[in-house]
């Protein structure tokens, strides 16, 4: 006999593990043909905030043949209890041990969760290495933004889903069901069949060879019929895409606990450091009327008092006025507040300000990303200082005293002048505060939040070297010296986390054994400052004979075979090379709304808003 209550009484926040939330899906496991478990490699509070999981959980459960459940990384106190009492990590809905599922799916949102993925496999009593899994073990599949360079995890996953999974995963589950039903299933055969389905990458079907300098010499399919390139999947008609109108509602407070309306996928801006802006192309918008209906029904099913409009750049959504007018016509009386994250300074207007503040408001945040116009042109941010200042003035005039600005240091071609520009821009915003006649009482408070640049796959900067650690620290200090004004709050993180992230983001298969060793050393929750230890990571890399500089600081040639070259994200390599060249020349590229830059994503088809060849 096992008493879950006894376990729950001994851990912090037991509400993380109870399950039984409102709107959770209950099915009879005996009546389905495929049991799927979604694993989120971070805490419950973060996992429950993730829109992707809501989408996939809902779309898989729409299918009567599939039962999709959920599990999250147990906090360390719960892990201790599981290990001490010999209990297997299990699902929320039915308490089924992870090893008893047919398919286990991980969503890979950030590189620093990789150690948690391995730890969860072990706690779920599933062999960590794909090659050691037997016929009775679940098929382990990964997806999400990090799967665009899945190579550091190649040894641990049986398969990766590349691109948008709402339709692809249902197809995947049905291939499994069909092969089981026809008696043709065995693990190898199934994975071979999967590798031929568009949008699925099976690492064990490919062979990598290396040059003497450690770069990749060749990357080839091992068997006939396995494609050399894996093209990402997209949802072609976003209006018809599945939307979770009955999201599972957590009992305990989560990071994002509100209605999240995804208004568009993709981004018309071509910021050269931004991976999300590229991998979610082509740009597809959902129509305001569909969104309004979905918001209403979700409100009726949840009772949330906040609606957040989610996209990479909300103010670029062409139906924004119609949508916000439509929403405000019924949300205002019901005391529902509207939040619009990801606003661009150049399109932030009085009208928008009035709409967001109609019930409740939060701090306004603008991303300037760099301190000088020269560098903003290099990274193709396409925003001017005047626009940032005008946006802040709008906020001040509406009664705000606090605004937050995002910057990054370490961009290619950056000089100390660009660092000084960050401080200058913030000072100009303070001056602007006093220029606003109907400003609120008190002092302005500018939060200057400064991150470190991490070169990411599928960006124009994917070949760039990252600043070495001492250089990052020097720049951070320099900026600190230049910002003595107490009205500016300077936020930054130690740079070493960004370096580890850079290694994992652009690494290849050779990093698998490093991660395996990290598991043996008990490393986990690396996205949490109380657990992350750069010392442990650097020692780990050294002990495994991995040169951090090779992955983080080394500038690649554009003809080098990159670990993620087998993936086609829609945007072509030629486009990235062109963009990189323009960056070095300080030339900008207009947004998709102004002129097509020929990125290539329109090849994927779909009801795109801007792409010339596919426009409705």
């Amino acid at each position: 006999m096992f008493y879950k209550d006894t376990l729950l009484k001994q851990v912090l926040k037991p509400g993380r593990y109870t399950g039984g939330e409102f709107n959770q899906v209950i099915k009879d496991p005996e009546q389905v043909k495929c049991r799927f478990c979604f694993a989120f490699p971070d805490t419950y509070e973060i996992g429950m905030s993730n829109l992707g999981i809501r989408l996939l959980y809902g779309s898989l459960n729409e299918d009567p043949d599939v039962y999709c459940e959920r599990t999250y990384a147990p906090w360390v106190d719960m892990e201790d209890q599981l290990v001490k009492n010999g209990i297997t990590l299990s699902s929320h809905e039915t308490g089924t041990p992870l090893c008893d599922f047919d398919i286990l799916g991980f969503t890979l949102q950030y590189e620093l969760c990789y150690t948690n993925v391995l730890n969860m496999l072990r706690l779920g009593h599933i062999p960590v290495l794909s090659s050691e899994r037997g016929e009775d073990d679940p098929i382990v599949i990964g997806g999400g933004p990090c799967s665009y360079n899945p190579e550091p995890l190649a040894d641990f996953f049986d398969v990766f889903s590349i691109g948008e999974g709402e339709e692809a995963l249902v197809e995947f589950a049905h291939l499994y069901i069909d092969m089981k039903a026809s008696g043709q299933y065995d693990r190898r055969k199934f994975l071979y069949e999967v590798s031929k389905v568009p949008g699925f990458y099976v690492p064990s079907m490919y062979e990598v060879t290396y040059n003497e300098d450690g770069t990749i010499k060749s990357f080839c399919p091992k068997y006939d019929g396995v494609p050399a390139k894996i093209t990402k999947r997209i949802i072609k008609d976003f209006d018809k895409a599945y939307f979770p109108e009955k999201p599972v509602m957590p009992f305990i407070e989560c990071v994002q606990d509100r209605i999240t309306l995804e208004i568009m996928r993709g981004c018309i801006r071509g910021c050269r450091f931004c991976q999300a802006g590229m991998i979610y192309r082509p740009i597809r918008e959902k129509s305001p009327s569909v969104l309004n209906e979905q918001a209403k029904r979700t409100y009726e099913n949840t009772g949330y008092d906040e609606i957040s409009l989610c996209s990479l750049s909300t103010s670029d959504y062409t139906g924004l006025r119609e949508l916000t007018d439509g929403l405000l016509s019924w949300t205002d009386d019901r005391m529902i507040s509207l939040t619009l994250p990801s606003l661009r300074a150049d399109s932030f207007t009085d009208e928008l300000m009035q709409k967001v503040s109609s019930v409740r408001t939060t701090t306004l945040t603008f991303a300037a990303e760099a301190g000088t116009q020269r560098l903003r042109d290099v990274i193709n941010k396409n925003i001017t200082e005047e626009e940032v200042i005008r946006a802040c003035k709008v906020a001040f005039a509406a009664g705000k005293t606090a605004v937050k600005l995002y910057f990054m240091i370490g961009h290619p071609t950056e000089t100390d002048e660009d660092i000084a520009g960050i401080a200058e821009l913030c000072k100009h915003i303070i001056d602007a505060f006093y220029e606003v006649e109907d400003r609120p009482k008190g002092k302005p408070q500018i939060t200057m939040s400064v991150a470190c640049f991490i070169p990411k796959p599928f960006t124009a900067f994917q070949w760039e070297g990252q600043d070495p650690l001492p250089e990052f620290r020097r720049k951070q200090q320099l900026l600190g010296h230049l910002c003595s004004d107490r009205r500016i709050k300077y936020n930054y993180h130690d740079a070493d986390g960004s370096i580890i992230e850079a290694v994992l983001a652009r690494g290849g298969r050779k990093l698998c054994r490093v991660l395996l060793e990290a598991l043996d050393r008990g490393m986990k929750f690396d996205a949490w400052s109380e657990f992350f230890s750069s010392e442990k990571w650097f020692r780990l890399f050294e002990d495994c004979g991995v040169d951090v500089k090779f992955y983080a600081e080394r500038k690649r040639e554009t003809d080098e075979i990159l670990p993620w070259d087998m993936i086609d994200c829609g945007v072509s390599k030629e486009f990235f090379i062109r963009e990189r060249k323009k960056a070095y020349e300080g030339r900008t590229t207009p947004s998709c709304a102004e002129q097509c830059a020929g990125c290539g994503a329109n090849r994927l088809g779909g009801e795109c808003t801007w792409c010339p060849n596919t426009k409705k």
Partner: protein
Amino acid sequence: MVPEYKKIRLKFSKLGALKFISHLDLDRTMKSAITRSGVKIEYTHGYNPRPHLVFSLPAALGIGSVCEFLDIKAADISPDDVKDKLNDALPPDLRIIEAYEPESDFRQIATSAYIITAISPDIGDGTPDQIKEMFKKPVVIEKRTKKTESGTMPFDISPYVVVKYCEFDKVKLTLGVNAAASNSVYINPEYIVKAICSELSIDMTDPNTSLYTVLRTEVFFENGQLFR
């Protein structure tokens, strides 16, 4: 026209998964359920208007209850309709048992009745008399407090606990107690369980062998009458 709001008291149960959520989270869960139910209730009048909910002293984390109270102010609806509409919108582990217009105040609650059950292979040796006797002498526990540096202080719970019945059945102990539950003295029943475990020298931490549950069944006025 400003609707006329009247106070409605909801007596509800909190079981299963809901045992493990804090008061703040219960508050959020109730609010969203009320919104879903379509029952119009009064909002607070501050800068950030929020549904106005007043709970009686809530059962502590991990403790089940069939006797929790919540006061709301609703307009143009009968207490029975509030009950039905809310039950349609609540998660299964939260149920409205009764709804009525109250005449009393939560501050008049003095004591609470609990049923404690414990299952453990080591329980067999105890006797009901042993448990009854133990509360006739001081029972000092480490009570949590924010005032001292260690966060706890010694506290004698025996004056505030009445053992009503006690049964031993091989591996199972069932206990009925009344304990103080007023604004001035509130005895968390977990303390009673801890004291008993220590008296019987049993360990209740192994999920493979042991379990204890605490269920709040009733609350009373100072004079011993059922609170309503």
